């Protein structure tokens, strides 16, 4: 008779899983289940789990025979993911009501995707990593194609699925190589084997490392594995795109960092060059390719590629300061992105969604508050102080210079000037141009509230940044001691 594992460190996940099942049951059994009710319940569950996560997390605990770890780093990242998911569900209400697309499945998919992400973040072994990742991916594929009656959405879903499956294949192949040459799938054991100074790192592990990184680079949409991003972002329904840009991205970055720093931390010299190259390529492509975009969702896709590039600058250092920078960057990024997508969801003309940047023309006259919020997000994404986006850049570039990565820092910061150009282009349309076809004068209350909260956060982050900076510092150091 085997003993039951200790469930306490995984309490938030357990609660989330059971709530998800209950909601699913309700949706399946009740003939006239209310999608709105399920949506609100999902938000409540996500926020409750977040509270649970922040209050009950035991610090450093490993359970399920070493497959699952709950440390400060996991708590920080899971909080971001939970917040991002909850915000994405709230953002979707108005859209779905307007498009007559209210479904019970939608929030439940987000809920289970979130569960997958939390498992990923807490993975302490290559196996549990893969399980979490696939749980998340399956939900995401369906979400991308959730409007199965439209060609664009199904195309996006299919593309995402094929490329996602390919990247999972790469990842699995890399993991099998690492397992074959190092002899374990567990992170602590791997870390011990690979940091042992006297042994030469087996070639197979290095090849496996490259495959694992390629697979994970797909998930965070870093160049050169970014091809799916613009198409999926454009094709998926806008609330789904908003969700994709927030929670899964943050979770994948979290996973990427844990894998590279924890089990593969001893190979920092090997993977650093890859991260530097991927980071530079992402920053450059993200800023230059976005210049020519006219569709705002495509533009956001390239913008997110660029932001991943900046976040990877922090990771390339391989130091606690760098990880702290990434955590701050992702926190700020979450708020900027949710705000921007809230604005994009307001873009309607004659009751139909529009996505061209030009449709924003003259917004400062027709909708001054939305224009102001959007301008704040754009200036912040461009990294102009004193807005929040600047602090993200400050921390990652500081870490890069501390680690002596001058070339990366200088090239990276110069691409941010190019990036500033296309963010400013949006401001230009809103403020400098006359509108020919104003947007509808309709704005959902939930969306307005999200815009306000995100806007105030982005604008006044500089007044009292201390709590977030300190939490990120604690979280980052726990990744190195654990």
């Amino acid at each position, binding site marked *: 008779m085997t003993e039951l594992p200790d469930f306490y460190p995984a309490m938030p996940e357990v609660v989330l899983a059971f709530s998800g099942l209950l909601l699913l049951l309700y949706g399946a059994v009740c003939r006239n289940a209310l999608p709105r009710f399920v949506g609100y319940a999902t938000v409540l569950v996500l926020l409750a789990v977040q509270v649970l996560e922040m209050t009950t997390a035991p610090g450093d605990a490993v359970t399920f025979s070493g497959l699952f770890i709950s440390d400060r780093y996991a708590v920080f990242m899971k909080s971001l993911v939970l917040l991002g998911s909850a915000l994405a569900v709230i953002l979707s209400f108005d859209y779905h009501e307007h498009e007559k697309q209210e479904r019970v499945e939608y929030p439940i998919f987000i809920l289970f995707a979130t569960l997958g992400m939390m498992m990923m973040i807490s993975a302490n072994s290559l196996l549990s990593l893969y399980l979490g990742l696939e749980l998340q991916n399956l939900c995401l594929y369906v979400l991308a194609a959730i409007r199965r009656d439209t060609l664009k959405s199904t195309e996006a879903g299919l593309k995402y699925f094929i490329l996602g499956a390919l990247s999972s294949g790469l990842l699995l192949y890399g993991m099998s190589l690492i397992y074959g040459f190092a002899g374990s799938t567990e992170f602590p054991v791997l870390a011990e084997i690979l940091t042992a100074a006297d042994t030469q790192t087996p070639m197979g592990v290095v090849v496996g490392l490259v495959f694992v990184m390629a697979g994970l680079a797909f998930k965070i949409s870093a160049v050169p594995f970014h091809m799916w991003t613009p198409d999926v972002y454009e094709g998926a329904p806008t609330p789904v795109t908003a969700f994709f840009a927030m929670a899964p991205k943050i979770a994948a970055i979290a996973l990427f960092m844990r894998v590279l720093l924890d089990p593969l931390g001893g190979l920092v010299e090997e993977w650093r060059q890859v991260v530097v190259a991927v980071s530079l390529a992402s920053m450059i492509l993200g800023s230059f390719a976005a210049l020519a975009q006219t569709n705002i969702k495509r533009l956001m896709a390239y913008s997110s590629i660029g932001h991943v590039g900046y976040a990877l600058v922090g990771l390339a250092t391989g130091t606690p300061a760098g990880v*702290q920078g990434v955590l701050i960057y992702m926190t700020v990024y979450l708020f900027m992105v949710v705000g921007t997508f809230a604005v994009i969801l307001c873009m309607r003309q004659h009751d139909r969604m529009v996505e061209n940047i030009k449709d924003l023309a003259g917004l*400062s006259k027709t909708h*001054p508050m939305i224009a102001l919020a959007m301008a704040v997000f754009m*200036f912040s994404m461009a990294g*102009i*102080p*004193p807005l929040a986006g*600047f602090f993200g850049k*400050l921390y990652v*570039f*500081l870490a890069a*210079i*501390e680690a002596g990565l*001058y070339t990366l*820092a*200088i090239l990276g*910061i*110069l691409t*941010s*000037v190019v990036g*500033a*150009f296309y963010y*400013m282009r949006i*401001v*230009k349309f809103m*403020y*400098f141009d006359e509108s020919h076809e104003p947007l509808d004068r309709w704005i959902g209350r939930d969306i307005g509230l999200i815009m306000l909260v995100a806007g105030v956060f982005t604008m006044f982050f*500089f007044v009292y*940044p*201390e709590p977030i*900076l*300190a939490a990120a*510092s604690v979280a980052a150091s726990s990744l190195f001691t654990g």
Partner: protein
Amino acid sequence: MVLHLPILSLVTFLPFIGALFIFMIKGDEATVARNSRQLALWASLVTFTLSVVLILSFDSDAAGFQFVETEQWISGLGIHYRMGVDGISVWFVLLSTFLTPLCVLASWESIRSHVKEYMIAFLVLETMMVGMFCALDFVVFYLFFEGVLIPMFLIIGVWGGPRRIYAAFKFFLFTLAGSVLMLIAVLTFYVVVGTTDIQTLMQARIDPSLQYWLWLAFFASFAVKVPMWPVHTWLPDAHVEAPTAGSVILAGVLLKMGAYGFLRFSLPMLPEASLFFQPLIFTLSVVAIIYTSLVALAQEDMKKLVAYSSVAHMGFVTIGIFTVSVQGVEGALFQMLSHGIISAALFLCVGVVYDRIHSRDIARYGGLVHRMPAYALVFMVFTLGALGLPGTSGFIGEFLSLLAAYQTNRLLAVLASIGVVLGAVYMLWLYRRVMLGVLEKEELKSILDLNRREVAIFTPLVVLVLWMGIYPEYFLGFMHVSANNLVENFEIAHGLQLAVAAP
């Protein structure tokens, strides 16, 4: 009594609080516009009054920073919110707070759309400018330094002329490209020295081989701001397209940020590199003085002419700073103040006729003196000031800078003084073409002279130009100790004896 108040923070953030109040104004368009104007004027006047209190309680014999405030801000990195002024920065604080109410007044009637947003942008801009001159921590400084871009970008882009979008983008991207390199330098400072406290960094000795790189990064940022030839090309565009008040702030204060940066950071923190790159600065400055003066001669647009003359005048400033002598530094400081007032006034003068005729084409004017005697007088004072006539503020700054240049390098002084001659040529020629001659053009025959609001704007400016020209010692007195201190520290850092004759 006054000293116990955080006066610098008050001066910095009062305009911002004013902007928040304007933000909350509600009602129909006319009421909002009227109330925003009033509130902006009062907020900026109160700020100016406070800054006068600041200068009156400033101790001009003390060498260090005064009114210092320190608050914990980002404890993880040991970054503090530090404010303080010395003899170098205190006048720039005053210049910013002095020009802002004038800008609000100058926009009273000419800005008709989005008055509320316009006033908010100006007050936020004032906060950024004052904060930048007061900041004693590098990160805080950088925050304000680059924060200036947001309101200025919007001011040029929303309320500017026909090519405003091009001008706004050019301004934004040029300055941003320079500033981000400075950010890298600031971070490098932090990594090498372990702090971003400006006072500590001034004492720190940086390895010379690293100094060169840091100096170049700073140079990228400050040279664009000054602006120095050949990165000055954003300036004529920005000036021409910006609304009058935007040009005033641009010429009056924003250009000084670059020169202030050289004085505050490049010289004290990177002395070896500053000396090493001295010939580069001198060459670029002389080219700027002569080349842009010639370009100014060829201009058909009044604002463009004044804009190019700004580049030439700032050439004297950079020469003065990099002679690193007491006269040079004081001359540069004085020239900056004087230029801040004269070029601001010249842009306001152009704005006066632009409001009436809606053209800045020199050829559209002529013989204005017959219809606008008061305006002609005011314009005369500033024209003479700009060409550096003794008795006006322009003379003192140029004279001191040239004197210092002569002691450093005679050829430099000779070449730079060609610029003085050219300056007289283009300014007087402008005056002749616009003001003198026969009043022939039909549309000018009914033009009105200055109204009371405009007289109120120009009176303090005229008074200052003459005051600074006739009794410069009042202004220089505040600078002596700080300038001496700067030069002494520079020499100690070198162990060199530069020929300095203390005045």
